[in-house]
């Protein structure tokens, strides 16, 4: 009797032990499961679905298609518009992201000083970000009108010929990039400012005692210390920049990127193929190409950022 009881309780405790071991091992997975289930439904499934459709001549309305192999990819890669849109996307991306991050870092460094009415200035840089995109688009479209726009009016007053914002390639990119920068500089400034505030003040004091000037402290203390945040900002603005859609789409009323595809971006090309021509197979192929481009470019940026803003200078 006693033995059986003992055995039962031993079996019990073995079971409980196993259960608790299993609990320790499996629970974390259970807790993160909701995210991955949702991701599988709304992230992974569409990605795979897009991949399947991209290999088909897909009729989204009749929900049927015919397998055509890599025909869509072949068409897109041979389409002049794809390459033009790729050029435009990178051009607008470079014209927006680089000034954006440089200016944001500079403004953040300024805001990091002991200013009067600090909160006012900090909130001030965020104003463009909370502005209604509609209002921003309205203002900029009036500014950049080719013949009767304000910018050309001002340029005329100092004797510069009107710039054909909606006709020439680079001016249209500059105009669009200025809209993007207007909107995103403040946002990035605040993120970088938060990173700068977290830098221990002793580092600056030590640097100052060692005789480092203002700019030296900025380059040798601030920049290396905000490296992880800078990587985050650069990667997110890379992804955002390569997916740029709203601003070029709103740059004229037709939203087709100009008569000569002057400012057609990849996402607009994809949207026009899908929703304009109702050719979702081809649009899916473009989506996948864009995905690959962003992946490659994101990794490249990550590598470059690590290389150039190295932490060894800051690692005293």
């Amino acid at each position: 009797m006693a033995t059986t009881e003992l055995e039962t309780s031993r079996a019990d405790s073995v079971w409980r032990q196993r259960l608790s071991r299993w609990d320790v091992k499996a629970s974390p997975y259970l807790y993160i499961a909701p995210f991955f289930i949702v991701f599988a439904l709304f992230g992974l499934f569409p990605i795979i679905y897009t991949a399947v459709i991209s290999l088909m001549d897909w009729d989204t309305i009749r929900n049927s298609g015919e397998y055509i192999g890599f025909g869509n990819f072949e068409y897109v890669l041979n389409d002049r518009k794809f390459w033009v849109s790729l050029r435009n996307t990178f051009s607008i991306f470079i014209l927006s992201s680089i000034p954006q991050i440089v200016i944001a870092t500079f403004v953040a460094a300024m805001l990091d000083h002991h200013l009067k009415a600090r909160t006012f200035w900090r909130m001030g840089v965020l104003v463009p970000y909370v502005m209604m995109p509609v209002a921003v688009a309205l203002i900029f479209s009036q500014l950049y009108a080719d013949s009767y726009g304000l910018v050309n009016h001002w340029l005329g007053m100092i004797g510069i010929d009107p710039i054909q914002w909606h006709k020439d390639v680079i001016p249209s990119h500059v105009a669009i990039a200025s809209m993007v920068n207007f909107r995103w500089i403040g946002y990035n400034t605040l993120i970088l400012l938060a990173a700068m505030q977290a830098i221990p003040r002793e580092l600056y004091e030590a640097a100052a005692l060692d005789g480092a000037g203002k700019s030296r402290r900025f380059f040798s203390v601030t920049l290396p210390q905000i490296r992880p945040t800078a990587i985050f900002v650069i990667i997110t603005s890379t992804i955002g920049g390569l997916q740029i859609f709203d601003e070029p789409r709103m740059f004229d009323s037709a939203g087709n990127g100009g008569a000569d595809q002057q400012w057609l971006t990849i996402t607009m090309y994809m949207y026009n193929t899908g929703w304009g021509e109702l050719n979702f197979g081809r649009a899916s192929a473009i989506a996948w190409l864009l995905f690959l481009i962003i992946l490659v470019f994101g990794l490249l940026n990550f590598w470059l950022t690590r290389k150039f803003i190295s932490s060894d200078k800051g690692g005293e």
Partner: protein
Amino acid sequence: MSFTRRKKMLGAVAGTAIFALTLAACSSDDGDTTDEATGGATAEATDEAEGSGDPVSLTLATFNTPGFSNSENDADYQYDLIEEYMELNPNVTITYDRKAESGDARENFFTKLGPGGLADVEMVEVDWMPEVMQYSDLLADLSDPEVEGRWVDYVEAGATDADGRLIGYGTDTGPQGVCYRADLFEAAGLPSSPDEVATLLDGDWDNFFAVGDDYVDGSGGSAFFDSASGIWQGMTNQLDVAYEDPESGELIVLDNEAVKANYDQLMAASETQSSHFGQWTEDWFAGLSNGAYATMLCPPWMLGVIEGNATDTTDWNLANVYPNGGGNWGGSWLTVPANGENVEAATAFANWLTAPEQQAKAFANAGTYPSQVAAYDDPAVTGAVNAYFNDAPIGEIFAERAQAVVPSPYKGEYYFQVNDAINNALTRVEDGTDDPAASWDKAVADIESIG
């Protein structure tokens, strides 16, 4: 999320342009006063058919301001057609869903057309009707002896598919006249009263461009018309065959000499006669008031665009004339998706709503010009004058313009891609990016890659 944002912005940016398109899209049919009795009878007949006891809920989806109900933008309309129908048919409950603009409605339409989920009655705009026609088998056949001949020919033809099924009841339409600036005509030494201008422009496109040359000479080099694209839609819609073969649906645009001839003629004229401002650009809006161009092809909904953007100008007039006959720009139909739950009740409702007397009310509400023949005898429509256009009798003028419109050429699967390619070609020349020949070559390359 970014797409919604984009749409909202687009809406705001395009502002009046979209508003104008919306008006066009939403215009509803007007009925004759003489038809009112019939309309009432129809409603009663519908009631009986529904058994008036069984409750039915219907949904109606439109865009812009078709003038159906006060729920459109909190409008203060004289008539509320939705309420009226529900009073006539107590068993019917109608839910009205209005999208801000045609593009939203189009996206929604094609997302749900296959899987289901569309409203019982869906409004479709002339701009995407050719695409809808590709899927006409998914829409209910609305043919009914009772509605035969209700609309002007081109409206009925535009909604009739290859098998002869009528899939849409016309609401509004956009017959065009010519808007012109009397002061500028006078300054250029041309006759300037509406009747004189109508006589002057009466003729084909050669005549139109010849007058344009006179205007350019007389005005010292000012532009005669607004943009090549605006004229292009007028010229192309008068062709019997344009981009695609009506029988086989194949692309024939590059072998169609009429298209290239139009292109050459228009490009030759536009060099001096066009203001080179693309329609709906900021510069084009500014040109409405600053006299950058003297004429524009003018559907009824364009009157509101001009008035809204050139409030201080008093010299815009409307001439009862159109080069080479007639032309339509804009308009909508009501369709009934075949997989809906209440196809019969929905058809009856669409029938009632597009009857001449209802559309005359919609015209009074929102200025959407009717496509119903009977409406053109209705004093409520023919009596309409536009104070801004120097009291132009717009009701009479557009009734005549509508009757002059010939059915537009067959528009198939590739119509918009081809049209975009050619419009881009025109714009490139107007922008000075390319010369006409090089720009045409680019369009040819674009068209060849379609498919």
